[in-house]
């Protein structure tokens, strides 16, 4: 009897304890001489079909050219990806290759010694093919830890039909812009839609005003602490946001709408303007689910200049999206580095036409068959005098969180422009 019990217990216990090691084995070598490189990315076949397809194609090509390497992918959607990568990092189980975001996101991983420096990969031709400023966003202390895959700028998209119906023209100055807003409000049209439940969307409006009033360095300096958020230009930028709120410029309930929800009124031609990264371009050009009549109505313009400000019309808010990292603890680091190099080159060739992604490597628009608006945005990108990286990406994670909260309060008029400045100063001073 006793023996039986012991055996049963043992079975139960081993049942619970097993299973643990199953997922771990990879990394070093699969069957025979084959080397397995593990890659994690965030484009599931369901929600990001085109991206997913490109990744699959690149992997296939690579495996054909390097028959002794096998690439194994694990795919999660955005939020799950962010969480899993963090958990894996803390237990030193990062995949050999994966995707990371720039600056503030990347820094703790670099400081924790999780990502490998990629300067050796960037040497020579590959390094020069990147648009300047993109690899820098993935650098810590002068060393690059990520190879950017995307580069976006945020223009203001507008509905030409609504503008015509209200006898409006694309505004050249911020005063014109406010007049456009006033006319639209008077005529009962929502001027701007913004999903400030995700305050990075509202943050871009603030950033543009800061840029047009204070010039391209002011905000960046305030964040890196060589300047201050109490700079008059930045306070004025915050005040202008509240002026727009007072005019009724933003869609009703903007602080409770997600970006996707806020996009609705623009796609249904209920709102005239929508500022968003150039990753939205496929929706206004190639996406077959969007009616052609709507797509024909959409144009874009650059954020207008503020009279008396130091801004430059060709300065943009934007920045690289995700980039590839190689794990510092990877047992197949050399193969992984070789693979990311291959990946970035191929990605640069096919991503615009294949998925409407503007890569961080230079694109020769004359060689490509692209919708006109794509070409226009790519040309703007080539002309850009400056691209200010999204404020929340520039900041450390905890400062970014506070910045986003403050943006929401600023739009909600719970704090004044001056309080907005002082609270930023407090948070950033805490970090030093």
């Amino acid at each position, binding site marked *: *009897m*006793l023996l039986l*019990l*012991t055996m049963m*217990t043992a079975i*139960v*216990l081993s049942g*619970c304890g097993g299973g643990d090691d199953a997922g771990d084995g990879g990394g070093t070598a699969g069957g025979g001489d084959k080397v397995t490189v593990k890659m994690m990315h965030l484009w599931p076949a369901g929600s990001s079909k085109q991206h997913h397809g490109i990744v699959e194609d690149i992997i296939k090509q690579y495996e054909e050219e390097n028959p002794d390497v096998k690439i194994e992918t694990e795919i999660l959607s955005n939020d799950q990806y962010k*969480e899993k990568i*963090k958990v894996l*990092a*803390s237990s030193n189980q990062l995949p050999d290759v994966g995707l990371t975001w720039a600056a503030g996101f990347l820094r*703790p*991983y670099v*400081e*924790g*010694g*999780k990502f490998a420096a990629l300067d050796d990969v960037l040497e020579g031709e590959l390094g020069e093919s990147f648009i300047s400023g993109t690899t820098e966003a993935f650098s810590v202390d002068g060393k690059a830890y990520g190879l950017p895959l995307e580069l976006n700028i945020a223009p203001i998209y507008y509905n030409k039909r609504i503008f015509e119906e209200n006898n409006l023209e694309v505004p050249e100055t911020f005063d014109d812009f406010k007049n456009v807003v006033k006319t639209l409000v008077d005529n009962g049209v929502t001027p701007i839609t913004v999903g*400030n*439940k*995700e*305050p990075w969307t509202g943050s871009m409006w603030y950033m543009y005003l800061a840029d047009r009033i204070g010039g391209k360095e002011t905000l960046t300096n305030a964040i890196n602490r060589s300047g201050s958020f109490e700079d008059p230009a930045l306070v004025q930028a915050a005040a202008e946001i509240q002026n727009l709120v007072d005019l009724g410029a933003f*869609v*009703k*309930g*903007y*602080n*409770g*709408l997600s970006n996707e*929800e806020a996009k609705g*009124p623009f796609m249904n031609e*209920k709102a005239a303007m929508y500022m968003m990264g150039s990753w939205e371009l496929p929706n206004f050009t190639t996406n077959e689910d969007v009616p052609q009549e709507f797509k024909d109505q959409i144009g874009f313009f650059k954020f207008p200049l503020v009279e008396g400000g130091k801004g430059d019309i060709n300065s943009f808010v934007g920045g690289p999206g995700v980039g590839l990292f190689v794990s510092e603890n990877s047992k197949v680091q050399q193969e992984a580095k070789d693979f990311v190099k291959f990946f970035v080159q191929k990605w640069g060739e096919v991503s615009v036409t294949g998925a409407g992604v503007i890569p961080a490597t230079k694109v020769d628009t004359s060689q490509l068959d692209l919708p006109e608006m794509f070409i226009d945005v790519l040309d703007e990108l080539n002309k850009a005098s400056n691209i200010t990286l999204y404020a929340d990406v520039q900041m*450390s*994670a*905890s400062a*970014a*969180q506070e910045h986003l*909260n*403050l943006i*929401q*309060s600023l739009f*909600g008029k*719970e704090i004044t422009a001056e309080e907005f400045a002082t609270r930023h100063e407090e948070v950033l001073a805490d970090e030093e």
Partner: protein
Amino acid sequence: MNKVMSNKWVIAMYVLPALLLILVLIYVPIILTGYYGLMKWDGIGEMDFIGLSNYTKLLTDDDFWQSSLNSLLLAIFSLLSLIGYLAISLVLAAKIKGADLLRKIYLIPMLLSSVAIAQLWLKIYHPSNGLLNSLLVFFGVDNPPAWLAEPNLVLGAIFVPIIWQYAGFYILIYYAALKNIPDSVIEAAKIDGASPLQIAYKIKLPLIMGVIKVTIVLSFVGSLKYFDLIYVMTGGGPNGASEVIASYMYKQAFNSYNFGYGSAVGFALLLFCLLATVVIQRLTRTDDEVEY
């Protein structure tokens, strides 16, 4: 069998699997959370021991206390709603026509996942074309509020779906308890001339007091640690107006990379829940259980 069970080793062996599971999955993480609360840790790199400073920071953190207050409000609101659930169950259990159908209708929200409920109510609350505001406009309200964007409305707007979500659960529990009361007791009361109200108040309620106590603890503690609907519907916004302790903890740990501080918040939440449970049990203690 008696002989087997008298052997302490055998007893230990029976208990061991469950004990190990509970230790590994519940108690060890709790202790670890308290321990991480003593660290400055971004969740990725090395941990730095900083003693109690996360906990002292907690005491003066306005955002934390605001979210605690919101959690407490939700808990009180949930307690009050129990009265409503109880009233509905009393009616349902009184053998009215269609009780079965109604009970099933009340149960439906419980079968939906929180995220589905959140999506549903996001549509209802949509500022311009949501069900609620469309109705209000139809009835002549000029400028109905944007429910989830107004700091002073958002908390109330979020409580409603939470109450709706749990209605079925508590009604089911009360209904089952009430059905358990023997008919003979009720009949005896009727013969003695008790009115339906008296029967409900003097007989039925005392008889299901044990169940009521359990539901009080469940709903109060459940509300204190509530997370999912709020996270999906508002993410704690606008600017923390609908932040609760659990969503604040999540934000600190996962969005701000303050795992140490997030753990401290989590540990404080645990203490609050323990405290609430003890206090509720003290307050509702009765001397003897009724037996039929």
